[in-house]
């Protein structure tokens, strides 16, 4: 899946080998200009959001839209004063704890479903993925009632449990595909050398799948951080997460574009940065490991 390996096309013998100059020339084909324009177009709303975050409200509402202005940090200061810190902390806590729980539950499960076959492997896999296919709305009413009855309404732990359930199936499928790549003969060799199961897991398998664990964790972080439906229905003030905090901007005191943009930038930035760093892992994670 690595995008870098295919960057240079393989030149086969019968074709006239391209000179360096010819290849360089090809890099400047009009299609790459199109690609650049489209990419900038897709990125533009995000860039505009960040730009607006540095404006005064007056500069945010102008026709034609202002590209040049005196940047200010006022909006970020205002947003930080209005309690975004609590929401960011709640999101970070829910994301971190649920991701850890997902890994603790999911990695052994994926291990059981890959290296050491259990009966009905396919049924178990299907069950996990089938839970992703069910619309969440069908469960939200009883969830609300249950969460209310056990006193976890507006409590971050309710979200942690639900985020764990939301991400666990993806983690199991992803981790299974990473485990399936561990060469069996390595295990055989380890067990022939007298290594116990636990030793070979710790010394041989875990180091091999640790990039997979990192990719799985990243996907869980993205989905938990961005989750909105559970958060808006099951939290209010105490446990509100960052997407719920953003809602406050449209229902409250009217719209302040610049301040809204500053809040949205703070909400989106952590995930954007994480995704940029690990973009190669994204495809595989999001396709539940179906694609290598």
């Amino acid at each position, binding site marked *: 899946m690595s995008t870098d390996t295919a*960057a240079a096309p393989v030149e086969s013998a019968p074709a006239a080998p391209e000179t360096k100059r010819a290849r360089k020339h090809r890099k400047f084909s009009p299609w790459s200009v199109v690609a650049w324009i489209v990419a900038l177009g897709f990125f533009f*709303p995000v860039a505009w*959001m960040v730009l607006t975050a540095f404006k005064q409200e007056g500069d945010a509402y102008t026709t034609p839209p202002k590209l040049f202005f005196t940047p200010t940090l006022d909006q970020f200061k205002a947003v930080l004063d209005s309690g975004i810190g609590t929401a960011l902390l709640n999101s970070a806590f829910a994301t971190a704890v649920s991701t850890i729980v997902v890994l603790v539950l999911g990695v052994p*499960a994926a291990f059981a479903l890959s290296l050491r*076959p259990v009966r009905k492997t396919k049924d178990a896999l299907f069950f996990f993925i089938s839970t992703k296919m069910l619309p969440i709305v069908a469960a939200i009413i009883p969830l609300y009632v249950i969460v209310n009855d056990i006193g976890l309404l507006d409590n971050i732990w309710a979200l942690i449990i639900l985020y764990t359930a939301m991400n666990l199936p993806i983690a199991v499928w992803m981790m299974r595909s990473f485990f399936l790549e561990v060469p069996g003969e390595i295990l055989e060799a380890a067990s022939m050398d007298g290594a116990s199961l636990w030793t070979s897991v710790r010394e041989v398998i875990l180091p091999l799948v640790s990039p997979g664990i990192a990719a799985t964790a990243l996907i869980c972080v993205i989905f938990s951080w961005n989750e909105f439906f559970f958060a808006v229905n099951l939290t209010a003030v105490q446990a509100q997460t960052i997407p719920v905090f953003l809602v406050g901007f449209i229902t409250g005191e009217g719209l302040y574009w610049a301040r809204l943009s500053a809040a949205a930038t703070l909400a989106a930035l952590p995930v954007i940065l994480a995704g940029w760093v690990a973009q190669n892992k994204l495809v595989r994670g999001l396709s539940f490991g179906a694609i290598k």
Partner: protein
Amino acid sequence: MTTIAEKPTSGGTADRVRELREAKDDSVSRAEGWRRRGPLLPALIFMIVVTQIPFLFTLYYSTQSWNLVRPGSRSFVGLQNYVDVFQDSQFREVAVNTVILIVGTVLISVVLGLLLALLLDRAFLGRGIVRTLLITPFLVTPVAGALLWKTTMFDPVFGIVNFVLSPFGVGQVDWVSKFPLASVMVSLVWQWTPFMMLLILAGLQSMPRDILEAARVDGAKPFAMFRELTLPHLRRFIELGAVLGAIYLINTFDAIYMMTQGGPGTASANLPFYIYQRAFLGFDIGQAAAMGVIVVIATIVVATLALRLIFKSFTGNEEAA
């Protein structure tokens, strides 16, 4: 799995590994069986408890006439809620909206994603940056993305969309209230095209280059090569993208909640939003639960077909890779 096992084996370590993994555990002792199953159980039990119990409650609530606004009104009504839901013309409109939203968004984002992937499948200056810029919409918190489109992009007076379109004679159009469903779709397509692009790009780059090269040497035209070689190879990636996109889009809530609140009327409501309205704004638990059950049944039917498609293209068809 069985399809792999049935394949003729050619010997070698790969097959030994496969045998090891495919081995039936009929022969292993009961204790060994539990030892193998053990690591699976916590995750399995957790998922069953958290996902299945609420659904059983939903089934139960769907047989109740239960409106929170009328205390003490709760009673067993059998299937009456289901009858009411099917007679509810708004429910039918919303169901149609849901299908339009999913099918439309998936189709457009797959086509755009394919075109973008083809553009990025060649080496050019700054390709890494272009790809990074392109995936960003997928990473933006959906609530923030929806707010961004509703305000700075689609605003009738100060919005960028109208500013860009004004040279073409488009006036101050209030996109979100005039074309609510289309506006929601634009923001969803913006968010999902990068995902499709990434997936299809992965497919393109897993193509054996020597075959393409050989075809070119044999004098195949670029379009013929695309149709005969590239597209068949990409098929399973496109299918996977469509299925995964649909799975996520069936739950679309944030974009509608933030941009249109389902309105005007129910013009842009989808099933999740409509059920949410019934349950949390109309307090009609029984009706909302019945709708939830109907949506689940419909999804199971569609998902079973879709999943069969994934399984077929990803396990039964390895040699096509």
